[in-house]
């Protein structure tokens, strides 16, 4: 895409920024159940971080650096989301019934773990996958 040779500062800083954005997106993802955030927002923000790097480094470099198959990521996300529902069916509950409990974990203290988080992980993966698929399908089209 846009690939200019003399932008040293830009290239250095964009890595830093991307790391911060990804970290923040992971925070948003985890905090989703109790504060603003969640799979959709986290996923979109991660996608933005990756896209920004694509803008700066170009598709060739990025494809080598992050060799994800985004359509696969999408389908894995869908499977994960659908899978959590099937687990509850296996235990005789309605499809997509979610469970939660509080656990004591070293370092973090009391932590709430929910199956909804796994469902949200599916959402996250699908959103990243589909956002990247849309844009890369156009960018990588060589016709």
């Amino acid at each position, binding site marked *: 895409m846009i690939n200019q040779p003399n932008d040293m500062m830009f290239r250095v800083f964009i890595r830093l920024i991307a790391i911060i954005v990804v970290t923040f997106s992971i925070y948003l993802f985890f905090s989703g159940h109790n504060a603003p955030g969640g799979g959709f927002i986290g996923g979109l923000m991660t996608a933005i971080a990756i896209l920004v790097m694509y803008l700066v480094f170009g598709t060739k470099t990025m494809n080598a650096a992050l060799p994800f198959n985004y359509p696969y990521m999408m389908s894995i996300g869908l499977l994960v989301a659908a899978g959590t529902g099937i687990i509850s069916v296996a235990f005789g509950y309605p499809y997509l019934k979610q469970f939660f409990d509080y656990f004591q974990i070293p370092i973090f203290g009391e932590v709430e773990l929910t199956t909804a988080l796994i469902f949200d992980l599916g959402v996250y993966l699908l959103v990243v996958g589909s956002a990247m698929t849309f844009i890369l399908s*156009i960018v990588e089209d060589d016709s």
Partner: protein
Amino acid sequence: MEIVMSAVIGLIFAVAIYLMLSRNIIRVLIGTLMLSHSVHLILLTMSGLQRGAPPLLFLEAGAYSDPLPQALILTAIVINFGVTAFVSVLVYRTYKEHKTADLYDLRGAKDE
């Protein structure tokens, strides 16, 4: 506030439809985007604006704004993203295939 909001929403809607009636495929694309903005705002306005705290229970407010329309809008935004992205790719592909962005030129042959 709701009345003023409704008027603005009506304006956005009208412009969106107007854009969708254009000859240029790019304007149609932007029109669909504007259309979805206005729909999201309608959903928000219908439920009443600025009533109670954000729907976050740890704030322990006396009243919360209605979470259900917000969940609906959130779904709508994401679906709309999918649709917009799909239409964008469609526009791109159409242009690559036919070398024109003018919808009048894109119409099929008369006898079809």
